[in-house]
């Protein structure tokens, strides 16, 4: 396993054990649930890392003797230069949230804004 994966596994095991110990010391439910939820977060990442290639395979950066020049000319993929969609994504989210305060009438407006921004966001990242 790579260092990163080991780290996530370690975190998950720690949180799980802490949760078990906590339960048997205190019999207090909220804290136990919190510890176990904490255990899940790194566990999900570790599971992904073990199952899927990007983190499982050995990578050039883990090779202590690698030379950055070896990667010269390699195409990393596209990097976006500009995007405006995050602004609309936030406005949509705020509108949905504000509907709880100012009336549920705002929900369709917020949802429309949010979906529109999300679609724009996704289309942009494809193209």
């Amino acid at each position, binding site marked *: 396993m790579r260092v990163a994966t080991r780290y996530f596994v370690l*975190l998950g095991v720690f949180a799980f054990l802490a949760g078990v110990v906590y339960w048997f010391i205190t019999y207090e439910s909220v804290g136990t649930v919190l510890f176990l939820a904490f255990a899940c977060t*790194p566990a999900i990442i570790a599971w992904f890392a073990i199952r899927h290639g990007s983190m499982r395979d050995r990578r050039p950066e883990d090779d*202590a003797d690698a030379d950055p020049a070896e990667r010269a000319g*390699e195409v990393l993929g596209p990097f976006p*230069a500009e995007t405006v969609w995050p602004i609309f*994504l936030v406005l949509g989210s705020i509108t949905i949230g504000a509907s709880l*305060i100012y009336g549920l009438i705002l929900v369709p407006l917020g949802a429309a804004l949010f979906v529109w921004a999300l679609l724009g966001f996704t289309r942009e990242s494809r193209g």
Partner: protein
Amino acid sequence: MTTTIDRPPQAPAPRPSPGIVHRLVSTDHKNIGILYCVSAFIFFLVGGALAEVMRTELMEPSRQIVSNETYNTLFTIHGTVMIFLFVAPFASGLANYLIPLQVGAPDMAFPRLNLSSFYFFIGGGILVLLAGVASAGQAAAMGWTAYPPLSEIRLSPGVGPDLWILGIVLVAISTVMNGVNILTTAFLMRAPGMTMWRMPIFTWNMVVVAILGLVAFPPAAAGLTLLLIGRRLGGLVYDAAAGGDPTIYQHLFWFLGHPEVYILILPFFGVITEIIPVFSRRPLFGYTGFLLATLTIGMLSTGVWAHHMFTTGVVDNPFFAAMTLLIAVPTGVKFFNWVGSMWGGKIWFAVPMLFSIGFLLNFLIGGVTGVMLASPPIDYQAHDTYFVVAHFHYTMLGGSVFGIFAAIYFWFPKMTGAMLSERLGRAVFALLFVGFNLTFWPQFVLGQRGMPRRYVDYASGIGYDTPNLVSTIGAYLMAVAVVVFLGDVWRSLRRRRPAGDDPWGGYSLEWATSSPPPEHNFDRLPKIRSVRPAFDRNHPGSAP
């Protein structure tokens, strides 16, 4: 656009200064980093102004300039702004700017997500400020902890608390997005040869911070959402009369709240750990031990939350006392790493180093008083007094904010290509250091003498007058320091004394590129054979 690594070296073309609109929508990590830092600093000015109003009110006994209600809003918004909108986002800004540079990547892993996390933070910040200025009787005034039942609609009517909750939830979303981005970049975008054990300490610390953010923010967002549901849709989770329990909220909130203080301090542990070795002309003493200490802090910090609840009588105090005392060990170890890095060095007292030393001196006091507060019997007395206020300001202001100034003076030349003034920088440091200690040392005395926190008013003639007066004078001194600092920034941006690529003789990769770095960071990467690739390049003789 498509990016390749290691384009052939070419003469840097004069880059046109990007317009403001471009800056607001550009996904370049350096741009987003600067956006984060500048906005966070503006929030700092807002939060600082609120603090000055509070100190002015408390300068003398009895009430002078604000009403009870306004005072309650002041400390609510001050706390929220400083924690959620200044220190943590400033660290995110540094992380956005520095992590790709330090690991030799052309950008963050998800640039669009990165810009989104920035805008969620801004959106949340604006909502929090709106919550503070909502019309009379409507503003958020329930403390930054927003404990129910106080924060329920019958005791805190009005839209202020709702806007506040929405704001914090947006900040939580932003933190999670940013955390995913940092982890992916640090784990998957490193340059060849940059193994995990060669990653700079700042990057490592931000990795731990990112994980803490991923773990700690969702429960708090859930807790706050339940609060909002209680306020607006009739939820009863926290209602004791309906069979709920208000202490559930405290668990959820402090499960965020305590890792959050490490989210606030670990980045700046990282910052001074970058700075101290550079200005001591030494390698970091005990890199591996330091890292293990950071990882241990990261783990233990998730198991200490209920030391904020020692006086509630609903938690197991010995368990949390043990965990809290234990976390003092890795923190103590770091002090020896820092001293060890200076020991045997050739220390250059440049401004970033001065702020780092200030950090050490202040944070130590925050640390030892923290150990006292970890003991439940002591906490029964000190909880919710000015002793606690002084303690956490010694860690967050004396620690994190000194770390922020150290970082600004250290990386400003890299970010802008212009040097800040050494002379003014020393003045800022002196004013801030003296002002800070004048402000908060007397607050330990106040706490010892029994002054509760969050009191708009206090009785005269029982030992509270002088410490409060001194404290207020110190607070004004800090305001002067900030004004001088802003003048320094303005002056250097006008004069533009060129910094060169590496004004300090830095160690990590950001010093191996131009200032400011080109669009995708590196025209050419040096070989990475240790934690200090830039140093190795400049000192071929002492390479390992």
